[in-house]
Each structure stands twice: as C-alpha cells, then as structure tokens.
C-alpha cells in the first residue's frame, strides 16, 4: 500500500484522455509551437512595426498581456508556462536535434553546470538587472528593445543548451525561473509519485536515466524525492518513462509546498523576501508620489533621474531583506532553543512568498484589466501600419473593471496573501520547534513584519497610479 498523503489530492491522470495526451511524444511540442509562432510575430512587430509601445503588438502582448497573465497561472498550475515556453523550447529543440521525437544522441557537449552555481543567485542577479535596465532604457515601452530582449533570451537558451546538459538555462539562468519556482510552491496542482515504496523498489530509475519512451527529467529533478513544485515544468517525460505507472498530477490545496517541503535553501529564501521588495517597488514607482519624490531628489542632488533611480533601486528593493534579517535575529532571541540564524532565516522566508505573489498579482490587475484591453484594436493592426485586419482597429473599448473595483480586488488579494502568509508562517514555526510556546514566541516577530509589509503594500495600492506601458 502507498503512503497516505497528509492532504487531499486528486490525480487528473486517472482521466484516460489526459493521460493519453500527456504521454504522447508530441504533447509538449503541440503546446510550444503556437507560442513559438506568436513570439516570432512579437519579434517581427518589434523590429519592423511602429516604434510606439502603446500601439505595437510586441510591447502590449509581451509586457501587458503575457507577463501580467502568466503570474496568475503560477497561482493555479505552477510552472505550466515553462512547459510551453518557446524560449526554452528553441534551446531544447536545437540541443536534441528533434522537435518531439526521442533521440538517443544529442548535439550538446553535455557539460555539467558548475556545482557552485547550481542555485538561484545568478538568476536573481539577472532579474534585478533586467528590472533596472528596463527603467533606465525603457525596455517594456520599446518594441525594438522587446524584440532584441526575446532574441537575446532565445540565443542564450540555444548557446547554453549546446554547451551544457539538459535545461541548464531554464533551471539556473532564466531571469524569471526562480520567481516562477517560488510562486509555483503556492499552486494548487503538483506532479508527484504515487507510492514511494514502488520507487524505492525499482532499480531502473528510468525517470532520471530516460528510456526509449522519453528523456530523463530535463529539469534535473528526481521524482522519487520530489516534494515541491519549484522546478517541475510538467513536461511529462517522467510520466512517459515510468514503467511502474507511479506518477500522478494532483489537484491539491494551495500553498502546501511552502511549509511541507524539507528542501529549503538560502538562495531561494533570499529571493522570496527580495520579491516582497521588488513587487512593492514596481508598484510604488508607478505612483504619482514617486514622480514627486524623484523630482525633489533630482532637484536637491542635481543628479539626473536615471542616476537617482539606479542609486535608490537596490537599497529599496533589498530593504525588506535587511529588515527580515534583523527580525530573524529577534526571533532567535525570543526563542530559547538557540536556533541558528541561517536556519530561521531560510525556513521562515518561504512564508513571505504569498505576500510577494499577491502584491505581484495586485499590480498586474491594473495591467490586465486597464491596459490589457488595448490588445483588441492592436490585433487588427499589430505593426501599427494602419491596417484593420479583423475590423477592431478603431473599436471603442470599455474597460473590464472600474478603478474602484480594481482597487478592491487588489487590496483583497493583498489581505488574502497576508493571511495565507500567517498560516504558512505558523505551520513553519510548528515544524521548527517541538515546544509550542517557543514556536509561538519565535513566530511573533515574523508576524509583525508580515503585518508591516501588508500595510505598506495596501498603502502603495491606495496611491493614484500613472501607467508606464
């Protein structure tokens, strides 16, 4: 008999149609191809279309629709986007020399990624760098820069794929890979083994070695020990290769991984708290107040806006991390079990994921429901040449939600994120100490920091915003 799960989970692979679909070799390619074609269109419109972000398909589709929407998918289906991401796909196609077929040999040098870099530090630096570059050079406003950016990512994916084994780029270098992984821990779906004993008894380990039916896990995961969503992209190779039919894709309660997993790391913990700062920062720079502060600082310092922005960027984004470090120390002092700082810092950090995630979602509500609707006229004229392909180019568009409704949804999300964070933090505190009173004392300062972050986020959302896209 298999072990009993600590939470209710239903396996969607019990539906034979879904199982047949996911075990078909062309399953992933069928999802990648349409996205690949759309990204080609995005590159073409970016390079050759009107160079005004608000009227060009590349900028609106990439930054207003795609980037805003996929954050919502992480909430429910984890890294499902990575399954169909055309940027990672091209690297993999070139590496394998095949679009979907199983080939024994590939074109890569198959070098292993350096052990010291097998973490999220590089990806986190890329994420911060891209955010900074965006604000200085106006990446999200420029169709041409957007096209160059996508070309750059695809090129990197191909080059890394030809040198290093499997999906090294997606696992260790993709700028949003770490963010997606952490948000996916919140998701209400998971890919897991059904019975640990079956895996233990099976010597073949086809899931990590591959067989004639499929490749070894491209994301370097070992399904037998998989207890969180961070790096699984549902490519279904393990479902294809498992001779014991021991893989399940479960629907489950939200946020389970954040406190159930035994695998917790410093790089992920740091990113979890950085995301609280980054999502708040991305929202505050869109407010009218930010414009006024920037004006005052530039006038007082006689520095230009980009210099001021660059100087302020890291301190503001990393401020929550600094505060959290101090609070972790306070937490240890209040708890008498003499836990070490790194342990407390790493464990509780995962409780901040819902705060960053819900602020990110709240931020994107504006992009999707206020700006996103502009995609309808743009679809008729993707290059901005004055076309009217579908008769919608001059359509009068009514926004989907009013400002007040959007603000209520945003704030509700932040409040829900806060309460989820408290629940996760509470569960983590119990897992860290056998003495319940000590666990409560250790959690109290963390709770106060969570309240602070939640109120700051609500305050930011209450300030009138100027759109930048």
């Amino acid at each position, binding site marked *: 008999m298999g072990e009993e799960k600590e939470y209710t989970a239903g396996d969607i692979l019990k539906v034979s149609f879904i199982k047949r679909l996911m075990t078909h070799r062309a399953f992933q390619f069928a999802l990648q191809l349409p996205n690949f074609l759309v990204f080609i269109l995005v590159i073409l419109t970016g390079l050759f279309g009107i160079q005004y972000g608000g009227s060009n398909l590349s900028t609106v589709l990439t930054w207003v629709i795609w980037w805003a929407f996929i954050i919502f998918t992480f909430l429910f289906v984890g890294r499902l986007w990575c399954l169909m991401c055309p940027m990672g796909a091209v690297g993999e196609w070139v590496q394998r020399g095949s679009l979907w077929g199983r080939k024994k040999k590939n074109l890569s040098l198959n070098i292993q990624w350096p052990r010291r870099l097998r973490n999220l530090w590089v990806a986190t630096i890329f994420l911060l760098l891209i955010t900074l570059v965006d604000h200085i050079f106006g990446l999200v406003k420029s169709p041409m820069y957007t096209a160059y950016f996508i070309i750059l990512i695809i090129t990197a994916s191909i080059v890394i794929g030809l040198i290093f084994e499997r999906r090294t780029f997606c696992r260790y270098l993709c700028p949003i890979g770490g963010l997606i992984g952490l948000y996916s821990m919140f998701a209400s779906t998971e890919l897991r083994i059904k019975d640990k004993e079956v895996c233990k008894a099976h010597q073949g380990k086809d899931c990590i070695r591959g067989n004639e039916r499929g490749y070894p896990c491209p994301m370097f995961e070992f399904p037998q020990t998989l207890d969180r969503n961070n790096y699984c992209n549902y490519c279904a190779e393990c479902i294809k290769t498992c001779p014991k039919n021991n893989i399940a894709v479960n629907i489950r309660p939200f946020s389970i991984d954040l406190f159930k997993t035994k695998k917790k790391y410093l790089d992920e913990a740091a990113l979890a708290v950085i995301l609280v700062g980054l999502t708040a920062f991305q929202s505050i720079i869109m407010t009218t107040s930010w414009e006024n502060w920037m004006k005052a600082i530039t006038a007082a310092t006689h520095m230009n806006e980009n210099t001021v922005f660059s100087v302020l960027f890291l301190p503001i984004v990393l401020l929550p991390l600094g505060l959290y470090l101090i609070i972790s120390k306070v937490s240890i002092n209040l708890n008498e079990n003499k836990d070490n700082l790194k342990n407390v810092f790493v464990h509780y950090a995962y409780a901040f994921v819902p705060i960053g995630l819900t602020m990110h979602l709240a931020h994107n509500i504006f992009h999707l429901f206020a700006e996103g609707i502009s995609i309808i006229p743009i679809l008729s004229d993707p290059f901005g040449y004055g076309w009217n392909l579908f008769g919608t180019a001059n359509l009068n568009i009514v926004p989907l939600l009013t*400002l007040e409704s959007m603000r*209520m949804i945003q704030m*509700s999300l932040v409040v829900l994120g806060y309460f989820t964070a408290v629940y996760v933090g509470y569960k983590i505190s119990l897992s860290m100490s056998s003495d*319940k009173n000590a666990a*409560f004392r250790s*959690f109290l300062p963390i709770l106060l920091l969570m309240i602070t972050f939640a109120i700051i986020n609500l305050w930011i959302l209450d300030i*009138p915003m*100027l759109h930048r896209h």
Partner: protein
Amino acid sequence: MKDKTIALILIIILAIVAIVIGATSYADQYGYYSQQGYGSMMGGMGGMRGNMMGSGMSGGMMDPGMIGGGYSKDSFSSNGERIYYAGIDSTGRRIGFEGGPMWLYMHGGSCVDCHGTNGKGGVPVMMGTAIPADLTNLFTTHSHGDEKMVMVSYTDDFLKRAITKGINANGESLDPTMPRWYMPEKDLNDLITYLKTLQTEDHQSLEENNATEGHTHSGNNYEENVHDSQTNAPNGEPSKTFLAAVSSVILGSFFLVQYLKSRM
C-alpha cells in the same frame, strides 16, 4: 483536524472577500460609488462607462461642471479640433501618448479633458499632480501660477516640443500629468492651428491687469475650483477600501494571534 479548521477559516475569509467584491462591482455598474474616492472627481462611474474611448469619449470622463461642460461633439471643423476634443487623428486612429493620469489610459481622452473647451485649464484633474495650464495665452510672455514665474512666449516649435516631449517654453520639464503625445508633424501643425483659435484677443491687457491686481490669468478659475478639489480630496486621503483592508489585517491578526495562542 487543526489544518481543516484553519482551511475553513481561510475559505470563509475568501468567501466574504468574494461577496464584497461582487457586491461592489455590481454597485459600480450602477454608479453608486460616484461620490467616493476617485469617483468624486468624475461624473459618476456609471456615467464614465458609456463614453470611455473613441470620438465620443470625453462626454462622461469628468463632472460636466468642472471645465466648461460636456465635451461630446459629433463633428469637427478641423483635424486640429478633432485632436483637441477626441485624441483621434485624421486617419481615425487614437493618438498614442506616454505619461499622463491613469484614467487617460483606461478611458481615453484628449486635451479638452484637462484644458477645457475654452482652453483655460486651471482646474485640478483627477489623479493629476499639477493644475492644467491656460492655453489661451501661449504666444505672449506672461506670469504663471502663484509664484509669479515668467513664462516666455511659445513659438510653434516650442509648442511641438511641449506636446511631444513635455518641455515648456522656458525649457523646463512639464509635470508628468501632461501626457507626452506621439503625433506626426501634420497633426501637430493642425493642432497648433486650432490652439491659435483659442487665444484670447485681450490677453495682453488682461495680463497687465492681473499683474497690477496680483492675479494670474487662470487665478480666478483656479481659486474657484481648488476648493472643490480639496473637499473632494482625490489625492492624499486614504480611501475607504484602504481603511477597511488595513482594519481587516490588524483586527484579523489580533484574533488570529489569540486563536494560534490557544492552539499552541
């Protein structure tokens, strides 16, 4: 069992939030929020929905009493007038812009929404951080605002720069409330031709009078309306939603701590 209890509490909170959102969205649809928060500067949310974008968009954007009444116009005597009223160019396309207040992105709009049908401006705009300028005295050197700052006369080139790059005749950057418009040369010329029709014949003598009386051109208009702006307080004061959300975080935390303490 413990997990199930907490999960149940979270589900109840979620259900309450969903009901509140549903109820407010329904209320929004019928304009019940017309006098609250940002809505106070508008002619009501219900009115706003009807005329968001396109040539008729300016009809419902703001309270008709704010700047010269409603802006609905079915026909235009020139391309410049169409741009000024509707933000639509001669090919019927919406003119692009950057910056500006958020409602401009959401609901559309053009020059008239801030500067008014007579071009006098002077009325604080929703979510704006500056008072819209008076466009009826562009071609004379005049004092500007309460600070008695001297604004040099615009030339056509200076005006094009102000519209597209947001730099005024003195070479200073305009407030981000003024959008930076992406407009082809022909449309710019047409708009400037229209702006010239808004210039008051007696602005020079009016300027002199204002200087001696200690006013600026838009002074009366500004003072009349600043009161409305303060009473409605579109910026600066926390919204009811914010206060409700913060209360739920603080009160919820209090009860949650009590609950967790009892479980531990």
